[in-house]
């Protein structure tokens, strides 16, 4: 259980970013946090992971203040994957994954042997082809999968991941979201930041929006309310489309002139006006 209550935070010398955020993610849940650039998603996730102390408000992990667990205690319960993981130069993929075992080196021992967790990460994150490769030879997507794999090896009840699908091709995005589903079925808690609303909706994740005003809002029921909230958050009008399985996805409304392949000549290049439309 990850719970944030009335969290307020400003980076030093900057205006207030988070103005009273409430967020709760329980066991068996996958919670996806979306919102415009710079709204504070990463900051909120770092606070939830206990890496940053809020100015005001409470942050709890399994009913205790997250900082009260101590560093190792927290690391045994919560794994965090940053937006831009830093893989150590010259290290092989399997060695980087094994670093995830660090919090379990001291007693009590980890629930499962390291070799089993390594094999699981290798399978779920499709790391067979890069297992013996060195970090600096990996592509962006491969590096991202290695970072998530290290969190899997950490084998915690809570996962906080900052845009974990970054740089991943569609096939690996789907595999990653299936992994989150498997974690949820095992009773773990998953909290992630994302820009892909539709993929989260397709996988049945609970969607939250951090809007430009520094407040977390639940994705409401009803198409009208949803459309309004998306319009407020992103400054675009959206339209719903039902896809197979009855899931409703949301796409930005596109003007005829936006399409590159439109038949009529686009004319001179024009700079978008303030509202984001064409003049």
């Amino acid at each position, binding site marked *: 259980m990850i719970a944030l209550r009335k969290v307020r935070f400003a980076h030093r010398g900057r205006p207030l970013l988070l103005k009273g955020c409430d967020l709760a993610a329980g066991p068996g849940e996958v919670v996806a946090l979306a919102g415009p650039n710079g709204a504070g998603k990463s900051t909120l996730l*770092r606070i939830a*992971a206990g*890496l940053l102390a809020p100015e005001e408000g409470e942050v709890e992990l399994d009913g205790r203040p997250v900082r009260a667990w101590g*560093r*190792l205690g*927290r*690391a*045994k319960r*919560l*794994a*965090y*994957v*940053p937006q*831009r*993981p*830093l*893989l*150590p*130069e*010259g*290290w092989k993929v399997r*060695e980087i994954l094994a*670093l*995830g075992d*660090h*919090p379990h*080196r001291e007693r009590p021992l980890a629930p499962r042997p390291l070799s089993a967790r390594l094999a699981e990460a290798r399978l779920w994150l499709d790391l067979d082809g890069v297992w013996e490769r060195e970090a*600096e*030879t990996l*592509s962006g997507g491969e590096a991202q999968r290695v*970072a998530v794999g290290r969190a899997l090896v*950490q084998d915690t009840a809570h996962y906080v991941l900052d845009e974990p699908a970054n740089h991943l091709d569609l096939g690996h995005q789907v595999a990653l979201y299936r992994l989150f589903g498997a974690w949820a079925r095992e009773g773990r808690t998953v909290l992630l930041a994302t820009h892909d609303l539709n993929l989260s909706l397709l996988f049945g994740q609970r969607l939250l929006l951090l809007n430009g005003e520094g407040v977390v809002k639940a994705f409401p029921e009803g198409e009208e309310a949803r459309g309004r909230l998306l319009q407020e958050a992103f400054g675009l009008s959206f339209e719903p489309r039902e896809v197979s399985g009855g899931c409703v996805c949301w796409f930005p409304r596109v003007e005829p002139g936006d399409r590159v392949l439109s038949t009529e000549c686009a004319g001179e290049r024009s700079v978008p006006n303030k509202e984001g439309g064409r003049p």
Partner: protein
Amino acid sequence: MNLREARALALSAVLAGAALAGVLFLNLPREAPSAVLWKVRLPEALAALVVGGALALSGLLFQLILRNSLADPYVLGVAGGAAFASVVTSLLLGAATPFFPGFSLQAAAAFGGGMATLLLLLRASEGGTGRLLLAGVVANTAFAAGARLAAAFLAPERLPSVTALLVGYIPTPPLPVPLLLALPVAVTLARFVKQGRGLDLLLLSDDEAESLGLAVAARRREALILAALLASMAVAVSGMIGFVGLLVPHAARMLAGRRHKVLVPASVLLGAAFLLAALLVSKLASGWWILPVGVYTSLVGAPAFLFLLWRDAGRETP
């Protein structure tokens, strides 16, 4: 520890042992061999062994702290501070002023200057790795300029001692001096071999290391203090011997892989082996010319390092 790591450690130990034996026993004079052995060879060999180990370990730690394998013990201004303090002391007080058996006041000042730079580094490290590197490099340049300026006012007969400090040499100190320096090397070694994987985590981003349970700020501060201490002490004993701190950690990584639990002892052993070998070469060559040992480490180290860079130039990101 796996087979490769064990083999690397054994090889490093054998190399260090062979170089030590060479320095001690090669070309012992016919008259009074035991006096030469005990009074000259042993203190020299111990000084080279400990200074080599200290420089290599310090270099490894700086490379870790800065996440940059081009760092060495001198890049962050510790050596510049030591040189500056030492030259200014020479300027104010005259030629080598005894301070402690085997230590001149200049040497003590060099140690003090190096450690004073640490205060700047500790402050700068709060602002992150990039700021630490900038502050260190700028401090080093400023100190080096200051040392040159002070040297310009130095009486010509005192210049050789300054030059020796800048190039690096192996003294023949009384036995307590290398033993004194051996203490922080041993402490650092024990501490970091025990931390093992915790040290490896410093290579990750701060958030990742912290989320894996590491007290990042405290661990980095500790490594910085010990690295600066080792470098300052080494400079005080033997001047600024080049390339040991830069090259040896690379060699250790080639032999032993990436885990610091093994890299730390391997670097100490290989650093000792490298400096002992350089000392041996300088002794063997002394029939023709007499050069400080720092010349040899740079003569071998610089091309070796360039070779590594040249070899790796092709294999960057895909």
